[in-house]
């Protein structure tokens, strides 16, 4: 059976080399995108990382949460993420804009914490990006998805506007688990139209 792992990260900023994961969430599904398992973890801010204020505002993360001593450290979180992804292997790892961002960040995280780096594309695992599917669907099947118009007057494919425009109640955008669920919803919409 082929399984998919949809995942998302919330971070201290958009620099994959110098920012860190603050929240990681993933849902494993079967090939019909029915949920089999889910995993979520938050972690503390590393002492040498300065977060981008815009990122904290977008994700609603307060300094108290960043330094909450009850949360696991970044290292502990990375170990748990690596272990969970290994448990779920072999799978197809998917996200929204993940090839450009989350995959890079995940590799950096694993490199910095001495975990196997290429988890999502070795040992039978492969990876993809739902944003690429969305881009392809707008050409191949233009009516499959409703592409909303952004504030600039141009079509936008941002998840927090695309998912609601297609009927998903995305009330908690920029929470990693909520974004994973929205990504699965978009994948299902495309899947139904294919």
């Amino acid at each position, binding site marked *: 059976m082929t399984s998919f792992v949809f995942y998302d990260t919330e971070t201290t900023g958009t620099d994959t*080399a110098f920012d860190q994961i603050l929240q990681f969430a993933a849902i494993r599904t079967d090939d019909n995108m029915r949920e089999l398992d889910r995993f979520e973890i938050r972690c503390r801010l590393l*002492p040498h990382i*300065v977060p981008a*204020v*815009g990122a*904290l*505002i977008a994700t609603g993360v*307060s300094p108290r949460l960043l330094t909450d001593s009850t949360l696991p450290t*970044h*290292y502990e979180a990375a170990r748990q993420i690596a272990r969970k992804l290994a448990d779920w292997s072999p799978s197809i790892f998917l996200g929204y804009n993940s090839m450009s961002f989350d995959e890079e960040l995940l590799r950096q995280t694993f490199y910095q914490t001495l975990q196997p780096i290429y988890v999502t594309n070795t040992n039978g695992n492969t990876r993809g990006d739902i944003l690429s599917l969305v881009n392809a669907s707008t050409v191949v099947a233009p009516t499959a998805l409703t592409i909303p118009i952004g504030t600039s007057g141009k079509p936008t494919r941002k998840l927090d506007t695309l998912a609601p425009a297609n009927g998903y109640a995305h009330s908690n955008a920029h929470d990693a688990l909520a974004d994973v669920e929205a990504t699965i919803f978009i994948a299902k919409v495309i899947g139904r139209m294919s």
Partner: protein
Amino acid sequence: MNMVEQSKLETWTMDRLFGFGPEGPRSLDESYQEACRLTEDVGDEHQSLLTEISTWLFDKLESGPWIEPNPSAQGSLGHIGQDQNVEV
């Protein structure tokens, strides 16, 4: 290859090999300036969070270096983990 092309190639290579360009990591001051700029841009629902973040960053700036060097941790891996400033 001229000097400009050489420079671009070096930057690209550094970026691909080490994952960073010439800019480096974000500084505390840079982040605090961003908080000040955002004060007028964010909506009312985010103002209290922004204030909390700004205060936290300002306190960090005021308190000097974020990570105080700890001489006891130098030169011995055995101290990593016992040093409160090194989080593993």
